[in-house]
């Protein structure tokens, strides 16, 4: 798909207000030439999926540092399925213990990026997945 920019939605589901990581990743992706939409705080899974549809994104990046990922990530994946947009690549980041990762993979989260991640790794991952 020559010329078409990858479109990414960076979203903060739940009540967590820590948005440093989400904003840094958003800027890094933008500087890497992607179109980035950032939702702001306190998004419900329904709002995130709706925005993803409206903005016709290729990727959703979810950020949670509160521990609510075990509940909210699967919920969002469910809604994507219901709306037949499972082709969107979903990645997640935040304070996510390793033991939770297999479960998140199982529901379809393509990649989990924990503290200390280099943003270049995220950029590379997205470029490989979105073809």
């Amino acid at each position, binding site marked *: 798909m020559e010329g078409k920019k990858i479109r990414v939605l960076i979203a903060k589901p739940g009540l967590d207000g820590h948005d440093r990581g989400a904003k840094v990743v958003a800027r890094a992706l933008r500087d890497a030439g992607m179109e980035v939409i950032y939702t702001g705080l306190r998004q419900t899974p329904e709002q995130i999926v709706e925005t993803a549809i409206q903005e016709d994104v290729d990727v959703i990046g979810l950020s949670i540092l*509160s521990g609510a990922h075990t509940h909210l990530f699967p919920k969002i994946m469910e809604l994507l399925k219901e709306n037949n947009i499972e082709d969107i690549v979903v990645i997640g980041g935040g304070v996510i213990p390793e033991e939770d990762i297999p479960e998140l993979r199982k529901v379809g989260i393509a990649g989990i990026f924990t503290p*200390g991640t280099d943003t270049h790794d995220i950029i590379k991952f997205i470029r490989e997945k979105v073809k």
Partner: protein
Amino acid sequence: MLDKEEMKKIKQLKKEWENNVVQKTLERFPERKNKLVTGSGKEVERLYTPVNLEGSDYNKELNFPGQYPYTRGVQPTMYRGRFWTMRQYAGFGTAEESNKRYKYLLDQGQTGLSVAFDLPTQIGYDSDHTMSLGEVGKVGVAIDSLKDMEMLFNGIPLDKVSTSMTINAPATVLLAMYIAVAEKQGISPDKLKGTIQNDILKEYIARGTYIFPPAPSMRLITNIFEFCFKEMPLWNTISISGYHIREAGATAVQEVAFTLADGIAYVDAAIKIGLKVDDFAPRLSFFFNAHNDLLEEVAKFRAARRLWAKIMKERFGVKNEKSLMLRFHTQTAGCTLTAQQADNNIARVTIQALAAVLGGTQSLHTNSRDEALALPAEDSVRIALRTQQVLAYESGVTETVDPLAGSYYVETLTNEIEKQALEYIERIDKLGGVTQAIEKGFIQQEIQNSAYQYQKDIEEGKRIVVGVNKFKINEGSPKGLLKVNPEVGRKQIEELKKLKEERDNYKVKENLKLLEKAAKTDANLMPLILDCVKSYATLGEICDVLRSVFGEYKESVKL
């Protein structure tokens, strides 16, 4: 200070040293980098000498501890009299579990409590609200009503401990619950010691747990100032927080500048409703971050103290010397903790805690090694507390007051941070004050730029994070992390249902109606909220009433 002749001589000798000695060394051993910088990215000179402090006036700029401008500390004897309060921020799951953790910490020699609430509580939702799903009990304890609060402090005599509560938008409600619990223990409000964070401006700037728009939020805050002046003389009515601003990516200068600018806004708001500055200012307290750069952080604390004293004196003309003193709590920097080789975090926390102590903190929280991964496990919290105890009892830095004063480097940094923070404050004044600067996104943008730069520096290898971009190893997944009981949410909801069946619902409704009526006037809402909580109205019910009158804040999103 030195006389002119001596200064001239030092300047001349320094030049000779640079030309003859340093130059030769550099030819054989170049320095590690062309430009060496502080943790905040400010260039550091090779050597600091009396020349950097030329023209400075000891009596004016430093003076003695306990004396204006308090650069050297707010108390005359500092830790020779009493150590700082060792106060670990804790709370998770149900009130019952958190109560157990508090008792454990007190048994281990902790000297004050610090309550972490879960996000629904911080945003004024009950555990059964749809937005609360998955969040109940996760980052702190879930409190829905006075009943939970009674359990939280069960068996802890509230006249014997001081309690800090990290609660902002619904601070009035949680303070009311604390007063009600104390009353049941037979303790009157004037005996209670502690702090509520109650700092909404930094929620808009950096932390995100706001509910109402700025104007009604500022009103609730000044309601607390007024109420506490009359009823709770030992209570710190606000903890004006730079901590979260720094965590969001701010530099040391930005942390000082934005925090003190927030402080100015609170003082202005209170004066505007007719409070006398010397009535409430002595109970203002602050909360700062302790980051990695030891000497820059020490200078930051000293600069903040001096700048606040000057602001209170020159801008607000306070008379009471207690109004001039910047008293502060410190927490080590969560954002510096690494998930990789997590035990290395113990070393980071030690350096940061040392900075806080050398900077003259009044109380301290040390982070646990495993907090980049999960809430801290019990043994990790113990090590964190022991780190403070080693500093207090073994390091020796507590035996004299402000031991780094007079260091050419530390004093120069102190001067620079004060100067640059003041410049920021003047810029914010020009924008029309903090609220305007937040609404325009100015402060958020400044912080985001710093955060992005920090990340880029790490990725380009300009900033080394041990174990992350250098000295990496392959390691297994960490063991023994704390897992919050997934049943907490269900349990809270059941309890809530039971409460609503058992309480006097007529009385609850009446009290909520009175609160609604008062919210539409200029009345102080504290007494009405107190009545509500005593009748076991829930936090969510009370906040819903206020939401219906005040509306809700919408953030301005900028990238």
